[in-house]
């Protein structure tokens, strides 16, 4: 049986890991590859690097960081943030990312997902969906797009996404738990793995996300604050009977 994954997410801005609440009030939390290596040693099943300023600052520093991560890590990682199309995705994958997460550009032009899947295979294509009250939002949560997240997830998978990274913008950084209702609806609507994101505060929240069908759970602020929390979370989940890699 495939294990449930616990995935630390590193939001990167200007070469540093940052974390805010509801995508605002960013605080600095360290050097990305150092932190990533630390998480890998502590049992992270996978990692996500999201370049939250990519569209503003250009990609050079990110690609350099992705290359170092590829050399140093022995677990898989996804790169994303500001991916505008196939060429951005290609450069991240060639730099060494195992998967690429694409968000707004896919929503604006869903055919990008088909192009990516055709070239790199669905397993390398993560469609990131940010949602508020079940509706797709973009531009770091500022723009509601008038479409049900469940409906968009279904189309994204039909077009070739191999995984859905589902973030509840309202819950992000609040540590009050994932949006379980939305996670359940998306997990039931698609065949591919769904990664629950936004709101993790304790092991119970991850277990609840697994219970409603998520294959993986993203964690950020709780582990950035104290990385040793990661193995504790995994141990608590294992104790509760969830299939968790030791």
């Amino acid at each position: 049986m495939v294990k449930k994954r616990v995935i630390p997410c590193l939001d990167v801005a200007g070469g540093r890991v940052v974390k805010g609440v509801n995508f605002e009030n960013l605080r600095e939390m360290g050097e990305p590859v150092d932190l990533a290596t630390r998480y890998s040693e502590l049992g992270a099943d996978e990692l996500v690097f999201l370049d939250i300023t990519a569209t503003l600052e250009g990609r050079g520093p990110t690609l350099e960081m992705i290359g170092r991560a590829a050399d140093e890590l022995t677990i898989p990682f996804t790169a994303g943030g500001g991916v505008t199309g196939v060429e951005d995705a290609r450069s991240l994958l060639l730099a060494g990312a195992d998967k690429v997460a694409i968000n707004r550009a896919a929503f604006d032009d869903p055919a990008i997902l088909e192009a990516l899947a055709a070239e790199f295979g669905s397993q390398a294509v993560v469609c990131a969906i940010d949602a508020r009250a079940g509706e797709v939002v973009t531009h770091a949560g500022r723009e509601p797009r008038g479409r049900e997240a469940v409906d968009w997830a279904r189309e994204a998978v039909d077009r070739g996404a191999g995984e859905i990274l589902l973030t509840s913008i309202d819950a992000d950084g609040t540590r009050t738990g994932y949006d379980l209702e939305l996670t359940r609806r998306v997990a039931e609507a698609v065949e591919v793995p769904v990664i629950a994101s936004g709101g993790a505060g304790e092991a119970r929240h991850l277990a609840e996300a697994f219970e409603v069908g998520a294959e993986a759970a993203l964690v950020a602020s709780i582990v950035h604050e104290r990385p040793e929390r990661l193995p504790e979370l995994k141990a608590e989940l294992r104790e509760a009977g969830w299939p968790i890699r030791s």
Partner: protein
Amino acid sequence: MSDTGGRLPRARRLTVAIADYGAGNLRSLSSALVRAGAEPEVTTDPAIVREAPLALIAGVGHVESAAAGLARHGLDVALRERVASGRPVAGICVGLQLLFEESEEGGRGLGLLGGPVKRVRAPRVPHMGWNMLTTTRPSELLADVDGEDVYFAHSYAAEPTDPDLVVASVDHGGPIVAAIETEHVAGVQFHPERSGAAGGRVLANLLRWSRSA
């Protein structure tokens, strides 16, 4: 070597030719091979792919585009010649699928081994994440990794005509071929370069296998 002080000279690193058919991420595999003691060379040169002590087919994507990429550089011919003359070839992920024949995804592999490649039938596809290896017979490739979790990321899997090729399986909606080994051909469906310490052992085993293959 001059800088080894009083220690014994180190054995030469095994050159591993990684067939580059343009499907991207070979960097993490190269780094992992260096850690395992090899000297990887990512190449489109059929002569290098034919003659290196070990040739690897890796990468991601579709069997069809991968096969086309190999053929574009004449690497398919080089790989067949290797196997015909008894030199070791190994495949990773799509590379393992490429060793076989017809794929349900479209396209055809190299046909070095008999059997089709079929879509994984499970509630969740792709089969994505860490899953436990169950060895089905002793092998060099998977020495000391029985029961370990390794990382999978695929929607298709090989179904060898000869079940004796299989050295490990994994359970995802039923048994899936996780690794195969013959005298000169080996393959893993998972990503050893992304499978932590257990993956490192598989790569070291692969180098050892290739020296004796």
